[in-house]
């Protein structure tokens, strides 16, 4: 460590606890309390990165989130490394490893710097004008452009850290823990408002915390001493929650705000493990007080980007807060009074200040006088016209400004220095205010955009509201807060404040130089390398809107999102175009305020919590019996049950055969179940299904088809009439939630006159479906008292029954064409009944089958699956289901749409069966069906929707939708595959047991 860059009488940095870290492979030391930036500066390291386009050497320029240059790769573990991290925001910790980005082989010797040589021919947006020849070479050009672009490197392995979310509701949220925010939070909390104060730093106090200057006093104390006492009093307020290291990321409508709390980033490497790294607070505040302060502006002059050129107030923070000297011979360049504060701080810490270059005419404010008293030279009405030093500034060139400020006059003075502090005035941080939809106004006097009107319950106070002087900050913050919170008692009466007043104001957006403008490089956006000339070029080429200029030159689009560059870009545009800045407006500030990790946004919704997993009551059984699962919506459904080393095909063939030969059993619990009660229940069903329901006898079941209002098939299922006014509707698994909400919608909005109540009972019942010729025998073993004769318990009917004194409903319905029963029993007992079925079915080789076999079995019977055989473009007529459309009913959902000119066409796509010429050839689902093979392009008549090898028919079968399919029965068609053409014949959709004999077998 370069000892002499660190001052020893510092209150904020614990100089007893030394921390080692690595930068670009070199081991360095800092102290607890340092940021990576302050530690690097203390080690006399300024050069930390290369710029995006020209690869110019760049150094640390700020001390906060607006840092454009010092963005580093932190960490070298492939799962934990983080690109583009601002050195000014990283708190130093033991074990920190950081390296420069965007340079090769090293930041000191970067091959990319050759771009700087080419810079004359690569102005803004040059890439739109070239790389077009030869015609197909863009791919090659692009390869190299991509390689040289980008900054840091993405991790290459999954993140091991944990992220979290927390909702927070409060009366008042105060954003920013500087002097204004502290006072506002205190006022709110003291007046019984549930208050939250957040600040992105590790301590409260803002810049006042290290403002120890005769020119700024409160009640006879230095302002820093006063604020320290204020902070202490906050801790005793019971209505106040304080969150430090918490950065407000986004301010959305309805006072919904997102704040990211850093919990482990500052901890030593070995302390980070198994803790939440970042927590995203989702805050809903009744009122929001923004006290985010202001950012210092740079000055725009030739070669203003060299390492060692640092914002003046940042130099002050480095010396006063971190105890780090940014240089030994520092020059300052300013257009306002704040640089004089820096001069005093430096001088108080024993750093020699060469001079202050001030573009203003001589002024006599309190603080300027103090600097003059210290004997520091001031170059009034002067500007820096150039800087020298490639990897570190070593001198500046100063000239006098002409009276109108557009040119330089007189002799050039060269001044040696190892650091230049620049200050172009202050920009209120209005980002959050505008993110929330607030409108800005422009104050000409000091060229700032200020909060004006807003739709939300929010105010801005302090310097983000345009108050830059201590007395105004205090007085106005208190008054505004009181008014905003409707508080009458003033908690801050009679403060005696001393505050230096800035008298003279002057601003020049682009400072003149003695060189031709085209030969200068005055950077606006340091990271993206866009210069004042680039902006002027864009304007010359007709890009007049600020958004156009921004996009054409990429100004403000770097990782600092234009925090430093925006105002100057606007200023230069306004000046060049001859418009007033207030009329020009600003570009939109978009969230987040500072970049936010994907991890924090996602929280713990990763891995097992990515999405909900729904399980049936028999889920454990399926696992024990080695089922493979299929995702159906959020459900896990048993897909097939391989035995030994069976693959899916083999398992499904076995299961399908067993179900038809003897007995199969399926977990159908996922089907949606809706309990329908009310005196108009039948009428309701008449309106929602295509068929008629009034005459359905009690105890009977009926299949129903539900359409959308556009006439297309939406859902289907069996509904049972349990008693006069009581039905149980089943829906598809995937459609369950949507069907219920659609039905509620109709009931509540279109048919409020109907006396009908719907209650979901999907999860209440476990549903066991037993099918096959032996299903009756099995059921009779489980429920001996139930009479199962076809006469007493015919197909499409239901019975109430008891199994071991537990109520259940048994439906005799079939989705396989086999004799089959569906047992619905309270979920708590479903697994037990399921197991009982196995016991009872053992002698019949009862075989569990999954969804794949279910699909195969129903396809053999030509039953559709909504969503697989239909795709939102199929009417019931297209599905040969004319029989299910009641001709008598006046209306039902979707009826009118069935009679539109396109839906009554007879040659629509219609459901058919397909048999392959080679019975062993299984069609691919999704394959297209054509009538001709020798035409290109060929008309596609339809596609295969379901396809299987049927073990029961010993041949391949398929369902398809084909144009005019109803009339094509018996015709030969073709299914063209990539390498071959498969010959098929159009058939009926029912492949097995056309007479439905098996239902009663």
């Amino acid at each position, binding site marked *: 460590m370069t000892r002499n860059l660190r001052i020893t009488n510092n209150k904020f940095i614990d100089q007893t606890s030394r921390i080692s870290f690595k930068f670009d492979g070199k081991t360095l030391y800092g102290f607890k309390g340092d940021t990576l930036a302050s530690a690097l500066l203390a080690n006399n390291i300024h050069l930390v990165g290369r710029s995006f386009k020209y690869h110019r050497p760049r150094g640390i320029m700020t001390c906060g989130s607006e840092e454009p240059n010092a963005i580093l790769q932190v960490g070298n573990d492939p799962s934990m490394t983080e690109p583009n991290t601002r050195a000014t925001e990283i708190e130093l910790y033991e074990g920190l490893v950081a390296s420069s980005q965007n340079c090769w082989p090293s930041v000191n010797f970067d091959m990319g710097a050759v771009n700087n040589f080419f810079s004359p021919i690569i102005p803004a947006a040059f890439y739109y004008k070239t790389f077009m020849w030869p015609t197909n070479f863009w791919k090659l050009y692009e390869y190299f452009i991509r390689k040289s672009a980008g900054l840091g490197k993405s991790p290459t392995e999954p993140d091991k850290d944990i992220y979290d979310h927390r909702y927070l509701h409060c009366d008042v949220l105060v954003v920013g823990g500087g002097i204004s925010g502290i006072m506002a939070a205190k006022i709110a909390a003291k007046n019984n408002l549930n208050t939250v104060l957040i600040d992105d730093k590790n301590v409260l106090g803002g810049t006042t915390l290290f403002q120890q200057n005769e020119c700024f006093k409160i009640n006879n104390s230095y302002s820093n001493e006063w604020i320290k006492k204020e902070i202490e009093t906050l801790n005793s307020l019971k209505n106040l929650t304080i969150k430090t290291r918490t950065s407000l990321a986004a301010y*959305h409508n309805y006072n919904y705000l997102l704040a990211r709390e850093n919990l482990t980033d500052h901890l030593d490497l070995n302390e980070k493990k198994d803790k939440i790294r970042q927590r995203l607070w989702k805050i809903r505040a009744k009122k929001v007080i923004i006290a985010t302060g202001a950012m210092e502006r740079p000055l725009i002059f030739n070669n203003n980007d060299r390492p060692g050129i640092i914002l003046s107030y940042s130099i002050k923070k480095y010396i006063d807060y971190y105890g780090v000297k940014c240089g030994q011979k520092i020059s300052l360049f300013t257009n306002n009074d704040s640089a004089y504060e820096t001069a005093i701080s430096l001088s108080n810490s024993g750093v020699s200040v060469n001079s202050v270059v001030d573009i203003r005419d001589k002024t006599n404010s309190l603080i300027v006088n103090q600097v003059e008293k210290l004997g520091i030279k001031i170059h009034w009405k002067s500007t820096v016209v150039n800087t020298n030093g490639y990897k570190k500034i070593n001198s500046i060139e100063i000239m006098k400004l002409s009276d109108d400020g557009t040119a330089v006059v007189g002799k050039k003075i060269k001044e040696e220095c190892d650091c230049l502090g620049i200050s172009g005035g202050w920009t209120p941080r209005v980002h959050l205010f505008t993110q929330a939809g607030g409108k800005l106004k422009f104050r000409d006097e000091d060229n700032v955009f200020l909060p004006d009107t807003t739709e939300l319950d929010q105010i801005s106070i302090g310097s983000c509201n345009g108050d830059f002087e201590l007395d105004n900050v205090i007085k106005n913050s208190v008054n505004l807060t009181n008014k905003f919170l409707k508080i009458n008692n003033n908690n801050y009466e009679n403060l005696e404040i001393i505050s230096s007043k800035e008298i003279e104001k002057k601003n020049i957006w682009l400072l003149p130089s003695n060189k031709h403008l085209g030969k200068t490089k005055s950077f606006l956006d340091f990271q993206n390398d866009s210069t004042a000339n680039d902006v002027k070029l864009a304007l010359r080429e007709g890009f007049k809107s600020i958004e156009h200029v921004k996009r054409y030159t990429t100004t403000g689009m770097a990782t600092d999102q234009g925090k430093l560059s925006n105002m100057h870009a606007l200023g230069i545009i306004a000046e060049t175009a001859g418009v007033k800045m207030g009329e020009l407006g600003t570009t939109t500030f978009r969230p987040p305020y500072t970049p936010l990790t994907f991890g924090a946004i996602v929280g713990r919704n990763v891995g097992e919590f990515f999405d909900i997993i729904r399980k049936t009551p028999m889920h454990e059984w399926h696992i024990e019996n080695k089922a493979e699962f299929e995702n159906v919506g959020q459900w896990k459904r048993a897909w097939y049950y391989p035995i030994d080393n069976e693959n899916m095909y083999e398992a499904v063939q076995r299961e399908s055969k067993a179900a038809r030969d003897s007995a199969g059993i399926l977990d159908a619990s996922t089907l949606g179940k809706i309990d329908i009660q009310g005196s108009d229940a039948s009428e309701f069903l008449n309106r929602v299904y295509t068929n008629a329901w009034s005459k359905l006898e009690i105890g009977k079941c009926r299949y129903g088809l539900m359409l959308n209002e556009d006439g297309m098939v939406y859902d289907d299922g069996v509904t049972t009439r349990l008693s006069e006014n009581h039905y149980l509707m089943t829906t598809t698994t995937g459609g369950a939630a949507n069907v219920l909400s659609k039905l509620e*919608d109709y009931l509540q909005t279109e048919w409020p006159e109907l006396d009908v109540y719907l209650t979901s009972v999907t999860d209440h019942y476990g549903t066991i479906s037993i099918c096959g010729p032996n299903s009756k025998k099995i059921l009779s073993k489980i429920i001996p008292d139930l009479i199962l004769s076809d006469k007493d318990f015919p197909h499409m009917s239901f019975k109430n029954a008891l199994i071991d004194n537990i109520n259940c409903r048994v439906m005799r319905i079939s989705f396989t064409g086999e004799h089959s029963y569906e047992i619905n029993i309270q979920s708590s007992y479903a697994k037990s009944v399921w197991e009982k079925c196995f016991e009872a079915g053992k002698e019949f080789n009862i075989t569990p089958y999954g969804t794949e076999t279910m699909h195969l079995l129903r396809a053999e019977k030509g039953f559709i699956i909504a969503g697989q055989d239909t795709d939102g473009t199929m009417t019931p007529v297209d599905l040969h289901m004319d029989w299910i459309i009641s001709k008598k009913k006046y209306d039902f959902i979707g009826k009118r749409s069935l009679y539109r000119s396109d839906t009554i066409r007879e040659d629509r796509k219609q459901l058919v069966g397909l048999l392959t010429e080679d019975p062993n050839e299984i069609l691919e689902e999704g394959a297209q069906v054509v009538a001709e093979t020798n035409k290109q392009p060929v008309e596609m008549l339809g596609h295969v929707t379901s396809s299987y090898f049927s073990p029961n028919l010993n041949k391949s079968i398929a369902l398809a939708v084909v144009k005019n399919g109803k009339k094509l029965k018996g015709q030969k068609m073709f299914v063209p595959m990539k390498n071959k053409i498969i010959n098929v014949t159009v058939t009926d959709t029912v492949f097995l047991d056309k007479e439905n004999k098996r239902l009663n077998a």
Partner: protein
Amino acid sequence: MFLINCPYCGERDQSEFSAGGEAHIERPKQPTELSDDQWAEYLFMRKNIKGVQFERWNHAHGCRKWFNMVRDTSNDKIHAVYKMGEKPPIK
């Protein structure tokens, strides 16, 4: 995220609600008597207003009631909510 004042349950986060499009488009009582054009008007055609719009929302993850909302689609400001069947409180 909007903060929506459900007319039954009070202020709740937007995530508890689902949007149901333009309000006061009554389902024709006698659809069969409409021309294809008229039916299409009901089915598909929307005012899609930029400005104050009347629309349907459902407190899907709360009381499951549908209700109407008056919202300015140009700034998302909710002017009023009212129950199904009630007259809009604002013209």
